[in-house]
């Protein structure tokens, strides 16, 4: 279908080449494929095949008409093969096809916006963040239902280089049209400089957090912060957009502290172990010994910088026991969360990062003993035969606060 010689002949007669976007086929869900030819006259002609034709055929035509009109297209032959795409997807695919034909530049066709959730606090829980490929709209709509603390709409590694432009529009529209409920709305942009173009398109839709991949020097974080500020200022936006740099190379690990402190918008630091282990030329194991130094450095730097330390992902989504072991170890090291590649990983991670019943009980006793000592005006606090120092009390307070935030205790 891509190499239809007929179509080429037709489009060669016009100023703009025929262009396409999206996917169709029996295995494709919630997406569509659109081809647009640009004749010089004849108005808008839409040929539609849809698996939801009897129910939403008219609605699809209406959306297509509206998008083309907003993009200033008056003559077009449009072929749509629809696999049940939702309106925000239809709109993004049409816009991508028009832009690929070199038209409609400078106009953004935006779907209706769901109300923004509350702005994300700097130190909110970030135990789990669910990666969703930015070019797979079928995963967007329910991504928030699985209870992750964050949803990452990914523009980087999960998107084929030839689909970067279209994925950007899909993600932009998803940020407007999809209700991500209580999830922090995150976007992983591409490696710079392409990532800066991503920002131009998505920052106006106020993602809560930007993951910056493959950071090696602080200037990259500064460039991202600057671009975000410029776009926000253009659009008059004030909602915070936090940053989470991902360190994925030996150099990144060496520059970790400078990277972590380059912007006061940075709230967390994380590590990408697939790339890091590949970079230092070792195999990533389930024990993680080969990356222990790098992970501990990320931890120490994050604490030094006063931000959250977040672990990588566990790639074998079928091995929940392996994930549990990894996550438990990760929490033991001092990480506050991990990435997720499949929703089934979320609850395992939440359990592993939650304080255990024994820890909570012990913290309760410590705090009770401390409060009792305070009431009595006793300087030295003891629990049983053990003396309790102020840092122990502090740790107990932190643990209880975290347990409360996770809903483990009232």
């Amino acid at each position, binding site marked *: 279908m891509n190499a239809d010689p007929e179509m080429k002949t037709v489009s060669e007669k016009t100023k703009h080449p025929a262009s396409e976007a999206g996917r169709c086929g029996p295995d494709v*869900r*919630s997406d569509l494929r659109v081809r647009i030819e640009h004749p010089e006259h004849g108005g808008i002609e839409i040929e539609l095949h849809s*698996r*939801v034709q*009897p*129910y*939403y*055929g*008219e*609605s699809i035509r209406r*959306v297509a008409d509206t998008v083309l009109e907003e993009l200033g297209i008056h003559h077009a032959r449009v072929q749509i093969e629809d*696999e*049940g*795409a*939702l*309106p925000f997807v239809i709109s993004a695919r049409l816009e991508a096809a028009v832009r690929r034909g070199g038209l409609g530049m400078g106009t953004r066709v935006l779907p209706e916006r769901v109300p923004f959730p509350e702005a994300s606090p700097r130190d909110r829980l970030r135990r789990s963040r669910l990666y969703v490929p930015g070019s797979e709209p079928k995963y967007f*709509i*329910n991504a928030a*239902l*699985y209870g992750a603390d964050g949803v990452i709409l990914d523009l980087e590694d999960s998107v084929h280089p030839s689909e970067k432009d279209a994925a950007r529009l899909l993600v932009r529209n998803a940020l407007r049209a999809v209700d991500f409920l209580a999830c922090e709305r995150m976007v992983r942009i591409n490696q710079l400089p392409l990532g800066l173009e991503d920002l131009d398109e998505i920052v106006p839709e106020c993602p809560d957090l930007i993951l910056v991949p493959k950071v090696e020097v602080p200037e990259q974080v500064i460039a991202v912060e600057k671009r975000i500020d410029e776009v926000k200022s253009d659009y008059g936006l004030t909602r915070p957009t936090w940053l989470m740099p991902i360190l994925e190379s030996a150099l990144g690990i060496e520059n970790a502290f400078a990277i972590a402190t380059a912007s006061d918008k940075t709230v967390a630091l994380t590590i990408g172990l697939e790339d890091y282990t590949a970079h230092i030329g070792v195999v990533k194991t389930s024990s993680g010994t080969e990356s222990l130094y790098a992970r501990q450095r990320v931890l120490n730097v994050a604490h030094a910088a006063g931000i959250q330390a977040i672990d990588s992902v566990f790639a074998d989504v079928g091995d929940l026991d392996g994930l549990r072991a990894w996550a438990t170890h990760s929490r033991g090291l001092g990480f506050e969360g991990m990435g997720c590649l*499949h*929703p*089934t990983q979320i609850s395992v991670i939440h359990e592993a990062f939650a304080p255990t019943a024994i820890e909570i009980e012990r913290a309760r006793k410590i705090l009770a003993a401390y409060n009792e000592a305070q009431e009595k005006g006793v300087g030295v606090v003891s629990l049983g035969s053990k003396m309790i120092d102020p840092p122990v009390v502090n740790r107990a307070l932190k643990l209880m606060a975290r347990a409360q935030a996770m809903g483990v205790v009232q």
Partner: protein
Amino acid sequence: MPVAEKAEVVTNAAGRSVLEMVNGRPQTPYMGIGKYRPTGAKASAPIHTVADFPANGDKVVADLETALRKCGLRDGMVLSSHHHLRDGDRVALMMLHAAGRLGAKDLVWFPSASFPSQKSAIELMKSGVIDHIEGSMNGPLGDYCTQGKMRGLGVLRSHGGRWQAIQDGEVHIDIAVIAAPSADAFGNCDGSHGKSACGSLGFALADSIYADHVIVVTDNLVPFPCVPWQIQGNNVDYVVQVDSIGDAAKIVSGTTQITRSPDRLRIAELVARFLRDAGIMRDGFSFQAGAGGIALAFVSYLKQLMKQAGVKARFVRGGSTKFLVELLEEGLTDYILDGQTFDLDGVRSIASNPRHVATSPFTSYNYHGKGNFASMVDAVVLGATEVDLNFNANVVTHSDGRLMHGIGGWQNCLASRCTILAVPSFRDRIPVILDEVTTLCGPGELIDVIVTERGIAINPRRRDLIDAVKQSNLPIRPLAEIKAEVERICGGRPRRPKHGDRPVAVVKWVDGTLLDTVWQVNGSF
């Protein structure tokens, strides 16, 4: 052309338009749950005498055509088959084509279910060998019927309703042909052994008891006695030996796999948690779930919760799969009461474990009996193509009116103490929750809980369930709220396709009354 075109339409107690006559027989409109009172005596097969059968018990004849001829095959007869071999079955088509070769016309095919691999039955309908099908139709057969091409009306019944119709004399089977994974020359047969083993043969039991003539077709003829026997040779006229009764790969799946779809997993997990939090999952409880993706995942989640709580079931109802067999073998249930067997683990278990018991639509589902097992099950998890705000549900047609599924045991299972429909809130952009279902298969007063990936709706009639989960952290929401949310996501309400004004099939309720009508859908699909 269809008798139905002349038939009058009346409105039944569910407010649906139903026919007064179906294939020349007067009908009773649905009157409400338990309202219709049957009268009279059960139907019966003619009396035979041992004098007409060989004393040495050898009823084997050369081939199926010979057997059909000896059974007195004539135009207009009702021929039945069972679907325990599912999409791998070869015997039903063997029977229909043999009847065609013998020159029979206007037959009624009365399968316990039909499958896509049986699509050549369409040719037999076109050539007039088959007049119409009374039984579930999907795939190509469903399309043929929905397009109004079948001469007679399709009659869709539940598994229990099929027993009821045979027993009550609504359908008189002239010749039953029973595919048997093992049989002896006397006609005793069983499904749990042989190269085409399929587990239970329960769906063929009524046919064997009530049909005028019974033919057993087997690819595993064993010396008398075939033990165990689920079908008694004393009801069998002839036995036919063939090379193969079915494609083993399609009869049972090697292993049944749990879905990887996050949405389906979430629905399954919510159902399991609902059973726990509502207090249904307790020592000695019982449940039934099918073999679909959500059902399998549900069993696996429930198993974890049962282990955590130290709870075991008294019995579970099959369709059995590896997952139920594991419950049995790990001591988490005392029994599997099995209606059909879906995978190799199920077949192995039913053949070897005395606590894995074959049941029939009579014991499990028949509404015109002295009770049945379905109403004794604490919770059942079912699917649906559509539900509406009154908790009514559709399981046979797509929202465009096309026949998609058979009723199976679905209607019968609604009798459970807690009926749960586990459904995605939309499929391919098409909302599943509507103002009114396209085809009514299950009255809302029997449907207690609807679990979607976006939340759980409890039927307001079930105050007890609403109270039971008050303290839980499950996402309990009004059905209308979920519906509104889905319509927002999908870009407004779907346009409702207008159906044609010609009936193509009818949906029976479990008591034989008419619940709804399936109308012709125009156009090709």
